[in-house]
């Protein structure tokens, strides 16, 4: 499905990305423009169709003349911007971010139901993460299997909050939320009650499909079997916004 037709009153700006000239609608974000033009920008929390979160920091880009790096997902394009998307500095930061994600919880790819279909695993390979230089935290995290159809494994959660946003913004149930701070941070269902006892969950499974890792999966899948289908999201998101 094509994106919505441009509004006549939106200004067009011209800018440079990695030395090439582009024009864009002034209300677009840098990541949207890059995705349209097949310029690869890694990201985990960003998802077309959901609100912007800006938490994973993987989509950081450099703007020439500005010392501070900016997140491509939460930065609007501007006239004359000169953006660099793949400098050595960015590669180094992205690599470190991915390593920290792996070190924080227990992502054991070889025995994960999402092995081979995981965005974190794929990004690690793309960013050249062939090992993790920091020590692993080695903390045991809970697994909630109380839901009859789905399972939540906190060991594999990267706190991208896609589940929280899709449940609130698309399904309209707002079963998911985030609890705690720092290393105690967790996604929760209802008021931190077991998922299976949730009174708000409709069982639609949208959270499972948008989850980039093996944190939210279908019950009964074994290693490598959990393939996610995210086609519903852009369609539903456009219909929502069109209303």
């Amino acid at each position, binding site marked *: 499905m094509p994106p919505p037709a441009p509004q006549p009153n939106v200004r067009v700006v011209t800018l440079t990305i990695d030395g090439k000239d582009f024009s864009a609608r002034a209300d677009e974000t840098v990541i949207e423009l890059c995705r349209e033009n097949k310029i690869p920008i890694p990201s985990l929390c960003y998802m077309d169709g959901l609100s912007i979160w800006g938490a994973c920091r993987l989509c950081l880009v450099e703007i020439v003349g500005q010392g501070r790096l900016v997140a491509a997902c939460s930065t609007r394009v501007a006239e004359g911007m000169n953006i660099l998307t793949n400098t050595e500095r960015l590669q180094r930061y992205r690599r470190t971010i991915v390593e920290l994600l792996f070190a924080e919880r227990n992502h054991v790819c*070889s025995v994960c139901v999402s092995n081979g279909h995981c965005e974190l695993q794929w990004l690690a*390979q793309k960013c050249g993460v062939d090992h993790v230089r920091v020590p692993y935290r080695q903390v045991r995290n809970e697994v909630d299997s109380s839901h009859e159809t789905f399972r939540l494994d906190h060991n594999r959660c990267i706190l991208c909050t896609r589940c929280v946003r899709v449940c609130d913004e698309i399904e309209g149930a707002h079963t998911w939320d985030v609890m705690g701070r720092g290393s105690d941070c967790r996604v929760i269902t209802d008021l931190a009650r077991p998922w299976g006892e949730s009174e708000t969950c409709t069982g639609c499974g949208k959270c499972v499909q948008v989850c980039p890792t093996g944190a939210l999966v279908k019950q009964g899948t074994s290693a490598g079997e959990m393939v996610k289908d995210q086609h519903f999201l852009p369609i539903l998101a456009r219909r929502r916004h069109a209303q």
Partner: protein
Amino acid sequence: MTTPATPRITVATAWLDGCSGCHMSFLDMDERLVDLAQKIDVVYSPLVDAKELPEQVDVGILEGSISSESDLHHAQEFRKHCKLLISLGDCAVNGNVPAMRNPFKLADVIDRAYRENVDVQPQMPTVGVPVLFQQVRPIHGCVNVDVFVPGCPPRADAIFYVLNELIEGRTPDPSQVTRFGA
């Protein structure tokens, strides 16, 4: 038979806390092993009969993570005697399945394995087995590693790529051919 123009590269391998799957994947290179054998000499390995690690080895390949005194000793010996050290497979690279015991207390893990789930004569083996560490570590958690080849196991193609790049004098980029869990 002609003698090779350059001396063969010496290779040593060992498996620490791993399942030997990475060594099986090495053997899975099939007929390419014949070509490889013209270029490398496997001087120490579970796959050959040598009992001692030679003083100087070009390439050391370690499979498995470091879970015991014996594993640590092996890793240190390899580091000492090998010019280049490769972590082969997820256990060596990131701890993988052996490291899944880390969030638990070692005593609980031992109880689970040797007492709780055992029907006859539950007991902890103490003779002829190395003492386990509280924490399982990847190889680079104990000694410096030069090349990391993730995968569970890394495919034979990936192992061949890495060895071939090294033989040709290039620096391999294993992320092109393998990944965690591959």
